[in-house]
């Protein structure tokens, strides 16, 4: 829904007043059923089916009445195709990404966490997961990210890999991480070790072969995966690099 009134503002969402004759001078977002002149914008649950959320500028000239060239007209710049092959897709902690392109995948901050890359060469589909813990949380009512855990994370990433045209059982995996950086007390086996074991187990359950690993030690790691070459580069803080 566009806003043709003279107030210089824009209507988003389910603005009930089609005539929009309010002279409030402000933007209405969402379920605006008020016809007041209170000078505010209403944001609300947009439950209509129209496409009024798309492409409507919202740059309010509230403090800019002059004719200079600083009126807000933001151009599109940059060419996605140009950058696609330059910048890696960065995967955060407890996140994963799946791509059928050639853009590298990277993640950093690995300590006891594990990075799992899965690649289906024939379909040219790849995924990278950075998980923190071996098993999904037991407690109820929590909204932990699935990618936080080896079991739910790998399973979810493989499902997306499949949706993107890949086949887990013909894919291979490379893994890195599982260090014991600052562990003092607790169990016989560190979280890093348990993470590494959990990743192996879940991948085996899904028929994914493991082509290379760099596990353990007391150092952090960052990794970059190149889908074009299949090379998995593991870097440590000391600058040491390993290629799997």
């Amino acid at each position, binding site marked *: 829904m566009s806003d043709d009134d003279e107030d210089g503002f824009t209507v*988003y*969402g389910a603005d009930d007043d089609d005539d929009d004759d309010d002279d409030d001078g*402000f*933007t209405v*977002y*969402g*379920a*605006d059923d008020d016809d007041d002149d*209170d*000078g*505010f*914008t*209403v*944001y*609300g*649950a947009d439950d209509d089916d129209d496409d009024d959320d*798309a*492409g*409507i*500028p*919202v*740059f*309010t000239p*509230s*403090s*800019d009445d002059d004719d*200079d060239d*600083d009126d*807000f007209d*933001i*151009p*599109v710049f*940059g060419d*996605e195709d140009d*950058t696609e092959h330059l910048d890696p897709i960065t995967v*955060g*902690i407890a996140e994963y990404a799946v791509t059928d392109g050639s853009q590298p995948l990277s993640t*950093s*901050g*690995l*300590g*006891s*966490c594990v990075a799992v890359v899965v690649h289906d060469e024939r379909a040219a589909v790849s995924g990278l997961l950075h998980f*923190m*813990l071996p*098993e999904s*949380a037991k407690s109820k009512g929590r*909204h932990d990210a699935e990618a*936080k855990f080896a079991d739910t994370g790998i399973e979810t990433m493989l499902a997306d890999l499949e949706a993107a045209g890949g086949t887990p059982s013909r894919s291979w995996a490379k893994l890195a991480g599982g*260090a014991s*950086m*600052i*562990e*003092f*007390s607790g169990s016989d086996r560190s979280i890093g070790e348990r993470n590494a074991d959990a990743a192996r187990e879940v991948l085996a359950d899904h028929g994914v072969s493991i082509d290379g690993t760099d596990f353990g030690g*007391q*150092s*952090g*790691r960052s990794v970059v995966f190149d889908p074009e070459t299949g090379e998995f580069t593991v870097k440590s*803080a000391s600058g040491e690099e390993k290629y799997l």
Partner: protein
Amino acid sequence: MSPKLDLRKLEEFDKMAVDGADGATKRLSGLTGVEAEVECSRLHVVSTEEVLGEFERDDALAISIHLEGYLEGEVVTVFDRQSGQELAEAFMPMLPSDSGYTDKHEGAAEEICNVMVSGYVDGWADMKEDSIVMSPPEAVSSAIEGEDEGSVETEYIHEGADAIAQRSTIVTPDGEIEFEMYMFLEEESTQRLFGAESGSVTLDDETLGTFNAVIDEGITSLTEHLGGKLDLEVDVEHTVLDIVPTERLSGTVSDEGSSGVVVELTEVPRGYLLVLFDERSDELVSRRVEPADELTTDDERTPETDRERAIATAGNEVVESIVGGLTEQFGGPIETTPLALVEDMRSSIVNDAAVNLGPDERFVLNFEVGLGTTDGEFSCTVYTLIRPNDVLDEMDR
């Protein structure tokens, strides 16, 4: 009104922060055509005094937007001059970078902020399936040199009114721009959002006060002592109490190499204490700090060289001060493991501590203290990572 965060509502509040950031991402990218992502990082409680100090900095651009409806109060977004300029130029590349930060930059930053906050508000309204009314933006503090916007006190920003803040980042093709968003909410909205009812377990200004008292107890003497050893004037540069999902904490920490010490707090409140020096400070410490003869260190991560012993000695000074302050505030001995020397990517170190808090910990309470010199020659960050329930249990005793 001071915000009281009911721990049981942290999930919901965090979801709100994430949904708000998603809304802001969609709005910013959709309307500007610039590939931008707004990432929510940390939530924290801040005192009015600290917030007003932030607004009144000469280089702070603070933009206020009033809310009515489901949420009543004020959202104030703060950029420093550098971030404001980067923000304006990221979205309006025709702006002249050579002229520094101009009124055109400020006007553009204000409008972009409006777009972004509208995305947040839209995200919140969608999540709550309710309406939120939003005013146009108003700059309450200008970052243009020599300009004074006057008092920033409003109905919601006044003495005794603490705020919930979230530190966030706008990721553009040119880089990352950090900003701080403060929510000053009217009592009913606070109650509705955080659900802190009488007798509920909360994180609030009292908790914040407890941690700030840790600073008062130990850090002042530490800065004098450490500064004496380094022959520098070391000050507390910032303190903040964050409540953050464990997986998101290290996302706000750089991958730069750091060295320092870590101890585990083994009794309630359980967690980790990390003292990390940046690379430049590492060199300074190793040159100027006389290594202590006797240090109790972890068997597997014991310092071996003079440099490592100097780092461990300086780190130990900080650990003792913080642990002393915690002991005083929590009214009992705080048990720790011996020192472990660490030298690695800062993000890995912090992330590993968060992971080791335990699989049942969804959130971590991070009491962060920045120590440093004004010229940046020395910089040290102390992270006290604690299980939230342990803190509250202790305070309830």
